[in-house]
């Protein structure tokens, strides 16, 4: 159970740079991750996400800038408070599940018996108790992924750094892992999640950092970022002639797979004013009325394309 104060800075990254020869993998990156939040790290392949994560974990050292974890420079004790699941992950295939979990738990500073008890508890919770004494190679791929996740949280870390957490998981296991991560966050833990799957970010993340070409492209609370990209329009679902509304400049029909028209507002007209106008019109009925906010996926594509043209 996390003992950190909710909202306290867990990771503080300040103006870090990292170059590989002539290639600048990370440039002047600054952000912070707080206790009790899911922090999404986004970006196209090769944007610098993995390099940044490896610098946080002290696997790589930044050329410039500083990184503080749990209030100080990372050391062995601080590393033991982190659970890390890289994208390229594996297990000791010839080892028994329980033995391998205990070994990795003990390496994280746990007492051997405590590691065994905790491993058995997690195996029970995730429905793998019967597989404890099986060799890892005898497990299905989905089971192995669950074991990998269990290893990440076995030592009850305060910070989980997880790269593509749901890659290759079926919907049921995705839900299980998602619940575990959200439970961890609600207990005050911090989750850094690097992923390409935007709907998971929309669903889970409190704040995000989008990196493009090694630089910060977007940073802040998810809702705030989405609103920043909101267009001056509302999406409505209902019946009536929307073009007859005084505050509407033009009406965009629904795209493929979409429901409801997009009403672009005239300059100076607010969404609240338009809603009042609709309410005053008996010939118009609405079932849904919401601000037209682009999905993170659309924002992601736009940012990457803007970056490519810059």
């Amino acid at each position, binding site marked *: 159970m996390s003992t950190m104060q909710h909202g306290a800075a867990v990771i503080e990254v300040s103006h870090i740079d990292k170059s590989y020869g002539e290639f600048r993998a990370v440039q002047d990156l600054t952000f912070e991750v707080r206790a009790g939040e899911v922090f999404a790290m986004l970006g196209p392949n090769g944007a610098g996400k993995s390099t940044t994560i490896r610098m946080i974990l002290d696997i790589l050292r930044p050329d410039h800038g500083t990184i503080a974890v749990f209030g100080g420079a990372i050391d*062995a004790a601080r590393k033991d408070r982190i659970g890390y699941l890289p994208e390229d992950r594996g297990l000791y295939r010839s080892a028994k599940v329980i033995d391998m979990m205990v070994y990795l738990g003990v390496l994280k500073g746990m007492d051997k018996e405590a590691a065994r008890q905790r491993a058995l508890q997690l195996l029970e919770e995730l429905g793998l108790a019967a597989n404890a004494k099986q060799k890892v190679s005898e497990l299905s791929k989905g089971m192995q992924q669950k074991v990998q996740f269990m*290893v990440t949280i076995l030592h009850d870390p305060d910070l989980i750094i997880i790269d593509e957490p749901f890659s290759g998981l079926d919907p049921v296991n995705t839900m299980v892992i998602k619940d575990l991560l959200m439970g961890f966050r609600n207990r005050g833990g911090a989750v850094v999640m690097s992923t390409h799957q935007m709907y998971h970010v929309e669903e889970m993340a409190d704040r995000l950092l989008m990196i493009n070409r090694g630089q910060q492209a977007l940073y802040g609370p998810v809702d705030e970022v989405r609103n920043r990209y909101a267009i001056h329009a509302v999406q409505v679902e209902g019946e009536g002639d929307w073009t007859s509304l005084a505050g509407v400049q033009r009406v965009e029909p629904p795209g493929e797979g979409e429901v409801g028209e997009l009403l672009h507002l005239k300059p100076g007209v607010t969404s609240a004013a338009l809603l009042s106008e609709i309410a005053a019109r008996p010939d118009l009925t609405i079932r849904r009325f919401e601000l037209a906010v682009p999905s993170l996926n659309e924002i992601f594509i736009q940012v990457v394309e803007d970056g490519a043209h810059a």
Partner: protein
Amino acid sequence: MRKTLIVARHELLSNLMRRSFLVATFGVPVLTIGLMLLVTSITVQFAVDKDLGAIGFADESGLFSGASTEGTALTAFPTASDAQAAFEAGDLGAYFIIPADYLTSGQIALFTRAGMPANVQDQIDRFLAMHLSAGINQETVARLLNPVTLNLDLLDSGRTIGSEAAVALFIMPLLFMMIFMMALQSASSYLMSGVVEEKSNRIMEVLITSLTPSQLLRGKILGLGVLALIQVSIWVAAAALGLRLGQAVPALNGISLQADIVAWAFIFFLLDFFLLAAVMAAIGAVAGSEQESRQISGLFTLVLVLPIFFLTSFITDPNGGVALFFSLFPLTAPVAIILRLGMTTVPLEQILLSLLILTVTALAAAWVGGRVFGWSLLMYGKRPGVRAILRAIRRSGQMGTTATEARS
């Protein structure tokens, strides 16, 4: 230190339970002792069954007519057919014919149902010699028949062995050296394949967020070093037991494991293990696959046993230039010193100098190997070039990744 010991314990226990380790550790001595017992029992059995009973002979040369057969198992027959008839009737265990040209040809024809025990030939030799040398002092004849009973006093090493065991002078150190090399090879290959596995299954990236590469490397070397010591101790004990059981075999008579050789061998073995382990760990971390790492490590193993190719030089002059060179060259020193210790007394200053060179080399290998190991843990797929490796050795504490090296 705690994490180093955790890794060491893990490496020791997980490899100790490997089927291949158990088969090699207990199978080799069981097989060796079993063979020793088999050879011993065959030797004893042969000695018990050597009495073929009466042996007949027919003299066609006329040289032995009237010769006394008193006190022997020999019976004279007038003709070859008489001897043959007695043999076929089961009265004789064997018979031989002395042909007319025996004196010039020296050949006789022996007929027997099965093989011929050595003592039968001894009896025939003795009978023929005694009667050909009629008139000469019989003690002189006996000495002519067996002029030397050699007892080899190795003044350098203070050992005495029988002449039949002289061959063991170089076979024993060879055997001894094989024991150590096999243990060394298996432990270091466990280390290398472990590193390759941890890299290829990508668990390495998780491990190095729990401990430093040097803690990981030290733990592996320590754990597998203990594993190798256990294996070599079992083999040496089995060899000692095998030799004790094999004393009935003439070639092993008087041969035993010498405490001084065992002690020196253990010291050299440990240092050689540290040297090889550091090299193997670096190879395992740098190589793209287990197959590739085995190919590279095979070259090192070949160098280690290079003195075997110069065995003749070691036997003819164990303190000569070739033997000295291989004793001082760190990679071949353990094999060369063990070989020489079995054959002669190696000057103490040479042993100490060899140890010093080996220790310095092992420390240097640990330093270089540690840097390469730490640097290459997160590099997957492509094997880095020599220039990149040299750069990594010069740079301190930096870990490489596939990305860093692709861009550098």
